[in-house]
C-alpha cells in the first residue's frame, strides 16, 4: 500500500487531495499543520508527503528540513499557491523531489505522485 501524507492548513484542499488520490489506489492521511504532520510521520512511515509551503504555525521550509533530516527516504512534493522561483530552488536544494502549483489539475497531481513513488 502506497501511503501519502498531506500537510495543508486548508480543509478543502486536504479533502480534495484525498478525493483525487484515494480512488487511484493510495492511502491518504491528512495533517492540518506542520506539527501535526511531523507527529504523524513519527507514528507511521509514508512514501510521499504533499506539503504546503505557507502555513501559520510553521514555515513549510522548516517542515521540509525536519522531514528530510529524520526521514530522508520519504519523498516530499511541495504544493504552493504562491512561490517565487528562488523559493522553489531553495526547496529543491533542501531535498524536495518536486513541486506543484495551485491550482492543479487532478490527473497531473496523480501522475506526479506516481512518478515520485516510481523513482524509488
Amino acid at each position, binding site marked *: 500500500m502506497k501511503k501519502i501524507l498531506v500537510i495543508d492548513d486548508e480543509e478543502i484542499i486536504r479533502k*480534495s487531495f484525498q478525493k483525487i488520490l484515494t480512488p487511484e489506489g493510495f492511502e491518504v492521511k491528512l495533517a492540518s499543520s506542520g506539527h501535526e504532520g511531523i507527529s504523524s510521520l513519527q507514528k507511521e512511515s509514508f512514501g510521499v508527503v504533499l506539503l504546503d509551503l505557507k502555513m501559520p504555525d510553521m514555515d513549510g521550509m522548516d517542515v521540509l528540513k525536519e522531514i528530510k533530516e529524520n526521514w530522508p527516504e520519504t519523498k516530499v512534493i511541495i504544493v504552493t*499557491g504562491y512561490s517565487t522561483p528562488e523559493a522553489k530552488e531553495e526547496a529543491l536544494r533542501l531535498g524536495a523531489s518536486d513541486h506543484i502549483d*495551485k491550482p492543479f489539475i487532478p490527473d497531473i497531481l496523480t501522475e506526479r505522485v506516481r512518478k515520485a513513488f516510481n523513482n524509488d
Partner: protein
Amino acid sequence: MKNLFRNPKESIAAKLIIATGLLIVILSLIFWYAIFLKQQKDVMSIAVEYGNSFTDFIKRSTRHSMLSLHTSTIQKTLEDIDTAEGVERIRIYSHTGSIFYSSNKKDVGNSVNKASIACTGCHDNIRSPGLLPEPKKWEVYKSAEGVTSLKLIDTIGNEPSCYTAACHVHPENQKILGFVEADISLALLDKTLFRQGLALTAYVLIFVVAISLFLGIINYKIVTHPVNELAKGMEEVAKGDLGYSAKINSVDEIGMLAKRFNAMLKDLKAAKDQRILWTETLEKEIAKKTEEIQRTQAGLMQTEKLASLGRMSAGIAHEINNPLTGVVTYAHLLKKRFPEGSPEAEDLDVIIEQAERCSKIIKNLQTFARASAPEKEEIDVNRILQQTLSMIRNQEKFHNIKFITSFEKGELRILGVTNQLQQVFLNMLINASDAMHEKGSVTVATRRINEKGDPFVEIEFTDTGVGIKETDLPKLFEPFFTTKPQDKGTGLGLSVSHGIIKHLGGQIKVRSRPGKGASFFVMLPAAGEKA
C-alpha cells in the same frame, strides 16, 4: 616727485631731508663761525702789526722836532698825518695823561680818560700805579658813528740824545718819556669781513640746498617711489586685483621686498584661482549628487511601490489560489461522474476553464511584480554604506550626530540591489537619529561573520538613544507599527527593510538596552561563496 613735498609726517623722504638738512646747517654754522673767528683774528693781528709800524713811523717823523723841541712842527706833523685815509686821531701824551700834542688841536692841554686803555693798558689801578705783567698795547672799539676802530699805544723810550738835548726837558733816569696813541678806522676791514661772511653763508646755503635736493632725489628714487609702488600694489590687492605686479627692478632690500611681494601675489592668485576652480567643481559635484539623490529617492519610491505590489500579489495569489484549487479539483471530481461529452461535463469544463483563467491572471500579476523588481547584482556593502553616510551627513537631521565608523577592510560583496540596500541603511540611520532626538553618536560597523557555516556580512548600527521597550520588540517589524507621532513615523521603515533583507536571504537582529540605546544587525549572505 610731488610726494616729496607732502606732509613731512607722511613722507620718509621729507623726514630724511629735514634731518640731514638740519645736521648740515648746524655743522656748517659751526664751521662757518670758526672760519669767521679765525679770519677776524688773523686780520686783526695784521692790522695791529701795520698799526705798530704806523706808530713807529710817527715816532720817527717827530723825532727830530722832539729833540729840537719844535713843538709847533710836531703839532703840524700830526695834523698832516691825520689827513691820510683811515687815520682818525693821533695823540702824544705824558705818562701822567696830559696831552701835549693831538691831531685834534682842541685836545691839547687836556688829560686822557683815566678809565681808557691809555692808563689801564699798563696800570691795574690808577691810585697805586703798579705795572701789569703784560701790558695791553691796543684795543678795538666802536666809535660813536658805529665804525670799528683800532686804538694803538706805543711808548716813547728815553735815550742819550734825549737827556743830553739842549732843552733838558727829560732827566736821564726817566725811562718812559711819553706815549704815542693812534686811532685807525677799520671800516674797510669790516666791510671785507662782512663780504666774506656773506659769501661763506651763501656757500653754506647752496651746499645745504644742493645736498638736500640730491638726498631727496636719491631717496625718492630708492625709497619713496618703490614704497609707493608697493603701497599701490597692496591697495590693488585689497580691492581684489591679484593680477597686479609691483614694477620695481632694484636689487636692494626694497627690490627684494617687491620680489617677495610679487611672488606672494602670484601664490595668492594661484590659490584663489584654485579655490574658484574647487568651488566650481564642488558646485557641479553637489548638483550632480543632488540629482543622484533625487533619482535615488524616486527610485526608492518606485522600489517601495513595486515591493508592496509584489507583497500584495503574493498575498492575493496565496489567498485566491487555495479556493481556486478547491473549485478546480471539485469540478474535475464532479466531471468524472458524468459521461464524456454530456452537457454536464461540458458545463464543468467551462467552470474549470474560468477558474484556470483566474489563476493565470494572478500568475501574470506575480510575474509582472517580479519582472519589474530590479535585478540583483554583486555590490560592495562598504561602498553603499559610505555613499549613504555621505548622502545624509549634510542633512539637518544628522548635524549633531557623531558617526563612528569601523569598516572591515576590503570589499564586502553581497548580492542585492543598490537602491534597496541604501533604503535599508537610510532607514536604520533615520531611526537611530529619531531615537536620540537627533543628538548623540551612531556606530556603523561592518564585518565578515560565519552563520551556521555560511559566510555572511554583518552591518551593525548602534545608537545611544532611548532603546526599545521589551514589549515592543515582537511588533517592531510589523507594518504600521510605530511609536512616533503621526506626522513623523509611518511604521513601514523596518517592515520594508525586513522584506528587502529577507528577500536577499538575510535577516535583521535587534538588541536593545532600554534607556541606553539600541543595536540593529543586518546580516546578508556573502556573494560568490554560496554553499
